[in-house]
C-alpha cells in the first residue's frame, strides 16, 4: 500500500468518528495555539521594546540632580540645582565614550495660541538634544546655532501639542504666547509615540535653553547656569554601564564630593527600563511555553489513549486486514498515520487559533504582530512528531496482534 493510499484510509477512519477525532485533537490544538501565540507575543513585545529604545534615543544616559536636605527636610531627587551647563560641557570633553551631551531644563507651561490654550512640559534645549534623542524636525526647520546662542523667541512643537493648539492648521509661522512671552513656531517635530513608561512624548514644546532659562523659568542668580537634566549619548560600541561610571567619577570630582559622601546627582540608564520590560515579556513567553509544553504532552497522551481504544475496537478489522494480506508494517503504518494526521491536523487548527489569539493580544497591547512562517511550520511538524511518538505504542500493539485471535474478537 503506498503512502497516499494509507493517508486516504487514515482520513476515512478518522472521519468515521468525527466528534471523537475533534476532541482528541483538542490538546494538540491548545498546545500549538499557545506556541504560536507565545512566539508572536514574545516577538511583538521585543520589537516594541527595541522601538521604544530607539524612540528614547539609543545608548542614552540621563543625569539628573540629586537630593538636597534643608533643615532636615529631604527634598528628593532632582531638587538640587547641582547640575550646570559646565557639567555637560565637561562630560562631553573629558569622557571619551561620550558622543554628545545635551543639558535641558523642563518647564511646565500654559501655551496660548489664537483661541486655544494647552498645558504641556516645555524643554529648553541646545542642538545636542536632537542628536541625543535622535529626534528630527518633520516640517519647518530646527533651531539655528545663532538662535540657540542668543536665546531667540522661537519654538518647536511636538505633534500632540501642535494638534491641540492648531488642529489641522499649519502651526509654522504662528505665534504662541507663554507667560506673556510671544514665541514664533518654526517647526513641528517628528512623531515619537509613547515612551517606555507610557508617556506621550509628542505632547511637548522645545525652546532654546537660554530662552527657557531667561524667559520661562524664574531663574535667579543662584541657579543661573543650572540645568534640569543632562542627556549623555554614548558612542556606538561603548559599554553603557562603564561610561556611566566614568561620568559619575567625573561629576564627583567636579562637585568636590569626598569619598563616602553621597552623590548629589543620579544617573539613569534608560535602556535598562526597556530591558526590564523585555524581561517581563520573556517571563510571559516562558509561561506560555510551559503551558504549551504541558498541553502538547497531555494532547499526545490523549491521542495515545484514543488510539489504544481504537485498536481495541478495531481488532476484527485488523484481523481481517491481516487475513487478506496486510503485513505487520502495513498495520503499524496505518495506525501511525492516523495518529500523525490527528496530531498534525490539530496542529493546523492550533496555528489558526494561535494567530487569532496573537492578533487580539497585539491589537490590545499595540504591539506589532510577528508571525514567522518557520515557526508555524515548526509547530505543525512538532505536532506531527507528537502524534508519531504517542501513536507508536498503540500502532505497535495493533501490528503485533495475532490474526487468528484478532479475527475471533467480538
Amino acid at each position, binding site marked *: 500500500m503506498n503512502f497516499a493510499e494509507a493517508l486516504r484510509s487514515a482520513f476515512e477512519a478518522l472521519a468515521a468518528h468525527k466528534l471523537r477525532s475533534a476532541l482528541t485533537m483538542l490538546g494538540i490544538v491548545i498546545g500549538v495555539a499557545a506556541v504560536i501565540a507565545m512566539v508572536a507575543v514574545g516577538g511583538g513585545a521585543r520589537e516594541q521594546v527595541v522601538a521604544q529604545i530607539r524612540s528614547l534615543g539609543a545608548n542614552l544616559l540621563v543625569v539628573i540632580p540629586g537630593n538636597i536636605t534643608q533643615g532636615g527636610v529631604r527634598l528628593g531627587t532632582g531638587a538640587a540645582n547641582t547640575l550646570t551647563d559646565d557639567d555637560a560641557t565637561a562630560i562631553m570633553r573629558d569622557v571619551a565614550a561620550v558622543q554628545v551631551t545635551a543639558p535641558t531644563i523642563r518647564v511646565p507651561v500654559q501655551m496660548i495660541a489664537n483661541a486655544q490654550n494647552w498645558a504641556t512640559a516645555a524643554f529648553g534645549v541646545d542642538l545636542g538634544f536632537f542628536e541625543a534623542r535622535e529626534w528630527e524636525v518633520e516640517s519647518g526647520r530646527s533651531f539655528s546655532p545663532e538662535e540657540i546662542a542668543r536665546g531667540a523667541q522661537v519654538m518647536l512643537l511636538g505633534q500632540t501639542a501642535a494638534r491641540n493648539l492648531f488642529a489641522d492648521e499649519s502651526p509654522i509661522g504662528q505665534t504662541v504666547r507663554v507667560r506673556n512671552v510671544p514665541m514664533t513656531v518654526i517647526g513641528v517635530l517628528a512623531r515619537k509615540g509613547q515612551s517606555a513608561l507610557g508617556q506621550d512624548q509628542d505632547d511637548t514644546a522645545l525652546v532654546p535653553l537660554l530662552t527657557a532659562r531667561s524667559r520661562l523659568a524664574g531663574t535667579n542668580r543662584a541657579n543661573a547656569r543650572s540645568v534640569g537634566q543632562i542627556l549623555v549619548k554614548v558612542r556606538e560600541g561603548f559599554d553603557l554601564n562603564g561610561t556611566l561610571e566614568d561620568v559619575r567619577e567625573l561629576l564627583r570630582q567636579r562637585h568636590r564630593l569626598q569619598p563616602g559622601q553621597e552623590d548629589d546627582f543620579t544617573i539613569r540608564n534608560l535602556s535598562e527600563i526597556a530591558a526590564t520590560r523585555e524581561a517581563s515579556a520573556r517571563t510571559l513567553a516562558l509561561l506560555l511555553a510551559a503551558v504549551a509544553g504541558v498541553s502538547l504532552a497531555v494532547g499526545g497522551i490523549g491521542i495515545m489513549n484514543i488510539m489504544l481504544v481504537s485498536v481495541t475496537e478495531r481488532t476484527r478489522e485488523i484481523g481481517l486486514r491481516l487475513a487478506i*494480506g496486510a503485513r505487520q508494517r502495513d498495520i503499524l503504518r496505518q495506525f501511525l498515520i492516523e495518529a500523525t494526521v490527528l496530531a498534525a491536523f490539530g496542529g493546523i487548527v492550533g496555528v489558526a487559533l494561535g494567530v487569532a489569539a496573537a492578533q487580539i493580544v497585539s491589537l490590545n497591547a499595540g504591539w506589532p504582530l510577528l508571525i514567522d512562517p518557520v515557526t508555524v511550520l515548526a509547530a505543525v511538524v512538532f505536532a506531527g512528531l507528537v502524534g508519531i511518538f504517542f501513536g507508536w505504542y498503540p500502532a505497535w500493539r495493533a501490528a503485533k496482534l495475532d490474526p487468528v485471535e484478532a479475527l475471533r474478537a467480538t
Partner: protein
Amino acid sequence: MALVQTRGLERRYVLGGETVMALAGVSLDIGEGEFVAVMGPSGSGKSTFMNVIGCLDRPSSGSYRLADEEVSTLDADALAAVRNRRIGFVFQQFHLLQTLNALGNVALPMLYAGLDRKLRMEKAAAALTRVGLGDRLHHRPTELSGGQQQRVAIARAIVNTPSILLADEPTGALDSRTSLDIMALFQALHHEGATVIVVTHEADVAAFASRVVRFKDGKVLSDQRQRPRDAAAAFAAEEEAAA
C-alpha cells in the same frame, strides 16, 4: 501434485500449563479444483486446520506444501504475501469494513497487493458483478442484507484470483434459504475451476461438497468422496415451494 499437501501436521497450544493438541498429525492432499467440506464438532481441530491451511497460523511441526512450496517455515511477511495472493477467505461474520462501500471492501486485498487505484476499482467491480451485485457497488455493508454482505465478502475473496477459496462456516449467520443461495454461488465458482474448502459443522452444508473430510480430536476421522447435492436446484425448489 496436490495443491494442498500436509504431512504429519501438528499444532500444539499451551493452555493453563496443559498442552492441547489441536492438530495431531494430519496428512491430507487436496487437489486443484476440488470442493472439500471439512467437518467435525467444535474442538475437533477443523478451525485450526483451516487457519494453518490459510496461513493465518503456523504448524508446530509437520509439513505443509501449498502449490509445491513449503509454507510452514515462512516468516510473517512472507505468509502475508501468500495470504494476499493465494488465499481467499470467507468468514461466518462477513468481516466487512463498515466505513467502506462494497467496492472499497472488495478492492482492499488489491490495496495490499500494490495495484493502482483504477485497476483495483475495475477488478472489484468485475468481482462484484460476478457474485451478482453489479447494481450494489456503492452500497455500504449496513445497506445490504446478510446474503448480500456475504456475496461482497466472496467477491473480496475471489478478486485476487486465489489458489484456494477458504470459507469458515460461510452460512452460519444466514437463514436456510439464503444459505442455499450462497452455497449455489460456491458451487458455481467451483464449476469455473476454483478450489473450495468449506469448514462447517452442518451436514446440510457439507452435502454440497464433492468430498467430505471429518475431523475428530485433531485427526482425520474419515475422508469420503460423494455426489454433491445441487444447491442451485435446491434453491429453485425452495423458491417454488414458497411461491
